């Protein structure tokens, strides 16, 4: 009976080694949940240290963070819009508001980019909303499509005379 035990064990080892060597390189990479990242960092590259009070025309610096975990290369466009409380932002429809800045970057899977941006607002007002939206280029449509990722910062913008 020892011959059978040795045969079974040897066959098992050979088949296991063969499968482990041959199969992984040809299997497509499995992505559980593809996602993109959009982040806004304050002037010190930290979350939360955003400016709150600004005057019209005053320049302030923020950092835009984009990350790609979609398992494919993506052409991102981050747009910055200015609005107020009256408009709604949703995960399905981009905000219909004035665009003050736009930034493009192409990222391969697993890559990320942090980019400094200098912005200024031209209109005074309380509770002004700075909305950051992420759009992705869709080759099928030949256009940028809203990805549903968005962030916002609330600002009080005062006129220089007040």
């Amino acid at each position, binding site marked *: 009976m020892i011959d059978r035990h040795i045969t079974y064990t040897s*066959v098992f080892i050979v088949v296991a080694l063969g499968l482990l060597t041959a199969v992984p390189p040809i299997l497509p990479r499995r992505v559980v949940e593809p996602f993109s990242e959009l982040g806004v960092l304050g002037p010190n590259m930290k979350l939360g240290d955003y400016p709150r009070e600004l005057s019209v025309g005053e320049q302030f610096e923020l950092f835009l963070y984009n990350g790609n975990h979609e398992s494919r290369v993506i052409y991102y466009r981050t747009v910055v819009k200015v609005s107020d409380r009256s408009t709604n932002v949703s995960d399905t429809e981009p905000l219909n508001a004035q*665009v003050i800045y736009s930034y493009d*970057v192409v990222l391969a899977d697993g*890559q990320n980019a942090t980019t400094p941006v200098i912005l200024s607002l031209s209109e005074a007002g309380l509770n002004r909303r700075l909305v950051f939206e992420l759009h992705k280029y869709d080759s099928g449509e030949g256009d940028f499509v809203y990805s549903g990722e968005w962030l916002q910062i609330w600002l009080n913008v005062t006129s220089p005379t007040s």
Partner: protein
Amino acid sequence: MRKHSLLSRNQYMLRFYLILSFIIIVFVITPYNVSSQQYPEELQETLTDAFEAVEDAEKKGGDILLLVDELNRIINLLESGSEYEVTEVRSELGELKQAALTSGELGYVDSTSAQLRAGAILVVTVVVAYLIWKYMPILVWQLWMRSRREWIVYPR
């Protein structure tokens, strides 16, 4: 006569302000479309064409990291506001597209050869497993007998 000329001037000013208001209103209420061109239209198209070529190269298994870096360098150049020659940028994007096509072809060849290699390994595995299954018991007993060559067997 004087009154008539005053009226004409007022009418002219009214018309001017109406047209100006119309232009301002149209400009303000037109919703922003994110696809609006950031760069000259022809460059935007060439840029997206180059990106699509990179995308295809990746689908075919090509190495795209250098192509992505080059694409971002060109995008940064366009966004920086510094002066650039449109023809030069277009030519660079054309070269990038060509490099993406080459990368895609190489990736396709690599992935095909990887599949062939995997197939060959599986075939060899099956053959080796069959040979073991067929000849291992004989081999084991031959080894067993060889290791006990000096044994002397006595009848009971």
